[in-house]
């Protein structure tokens, strides 16, 4: 799309102090080259509406703070160019499926509570080795590939906002916590499947997923939570039938004592600071 001369931001405002229901507010700005939705919001805050509230930090699609409902889709405001929306009218609302704290700030606590309940960390029996390592947990590239894409999740909540089951069932953990649970279940260094199963096998587990696939469509980092949920369902069914056995967590191997540089890899440049 060619860049518009002006962009109208239709922003959903809400201030809990006023006891008024959320309302739309229109602000028109001149388009500047390379303008993102977050750039527009910053300009509006600096010039038109000083009380406008949202979350953002890195401005480069890494921190996951600026998830918003932009033109009917959950997106990162910093990652969304005005030109890619194909219109000069940009509607911006807080992520659906969350309570609103203020303006564009959703209350993400239920998502992070569900995330924490699913123990998103390496669980092993050799805790001494974990905290005072004598070597490295071995992992080959194929084992890494089993969970690598799920490590790209930035916990922005876009998948939760897109999920029709999260919209209707408060007991459902949602795509982000479930995908992160699978990320650790699929990690060859982890031995925590049975610990996580205490939550996954209940109504907070993956059972209510309709496989709408909206979570995977919405993810700004290209993660596929729907795939993680289906794999997890299969593992849990096989586990019930006593046909699934989580592989033993990978063994500790000695740290390499001698590093040989490959001839085709150039030296790193000298440090500047």
């Amino acid at each position, binding site marked *: 799309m060619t860049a518009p001369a002006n962009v109208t931001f239709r922003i959903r405002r809400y201030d809990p102090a006023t006891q008024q229901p959320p309302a739309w507010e229109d602000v028109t700005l001149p388009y500047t080259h390379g303008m993102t939705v977050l750039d527009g919001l910053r300009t509006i805050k600096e010039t038109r509406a000083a009380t406008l509230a949202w979350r953002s930090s890195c401005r480069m699609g890494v921190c996951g703070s600026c998830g918003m409902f932009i033109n009917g889709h959950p997106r990162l405001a910093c990652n969304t160019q005005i030109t890619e929306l194909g219109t000069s009218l940009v509607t911006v609302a807080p992520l659906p499926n969350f309570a609103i704290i203020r303006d564009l700030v959703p209350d993400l606590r239920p998502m992070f509570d569900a995330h924490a309940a699913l123990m998103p960390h390496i669980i092993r029996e050799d805790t001494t080795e974990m905290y005072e390592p004598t070597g490295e947990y071995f992992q080959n590239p194929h084992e890494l590939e089993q969970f690598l894409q799920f490590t790209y999740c930035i916990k922005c909540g876009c998948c939760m906002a897109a999920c029709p089951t999260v919209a*209707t069932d408060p007991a459902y953990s949602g795509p982000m916590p479930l995908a992160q649970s699978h990320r650790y279940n699929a990690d060859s260094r982890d031995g925590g499947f049975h610990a996580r199963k205490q939550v996954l096998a209940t109504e907070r587990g993956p*059972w209510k997923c309709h496989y709408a696939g909206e979570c995977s469509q919405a993810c700004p980092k290209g993660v596929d939570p729907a795939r993680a949920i289906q794999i997890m369902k299969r593992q849990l069914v096989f586990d019930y039938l006593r046909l699934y056995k989580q592989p033993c967590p990978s063994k500790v191997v000695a740290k390499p004592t001698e590093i040989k540089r490959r001839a085709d890899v150039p030296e790193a440049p000298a440090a500047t600071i």
Partner: protein
Amino acid sequence: MRDQRLWTWHVLAGLVILVFLGLHMAIMHLDVLLGIFNPGDPHPIAWANVVARAKTGFFTFSYIVLLGAALFHGLYGFRNILFELGPGPGVKRAANLVLTVGGLGLFVFGAWAAWAAGTLARTL
């Protein structure tokens, strides 16, 4: 753990339905060509064919298994739809009770009907 158990049985019931409903479809729509299960008449619901099938223990068994699988599969799915409407814990407990008792009642009645039909057919 209950949801893991119920989901697994839901999947297994779906597989059972696939097999026995497939058999039903084959009997009703393909057996003019196959000629395996309808010995009396080319038409699958002709009286002679119905009696011939009901006399065999295999068909009595298949009717009862299909009935159980279909009831469980359908009622579990219906329960999921109900629970997505966001009822409170009391309503959930009541729904579990009604669906379990109702499902068991329908299964007992249907199983008795299949058994009685087999018994009756063997006297003819």
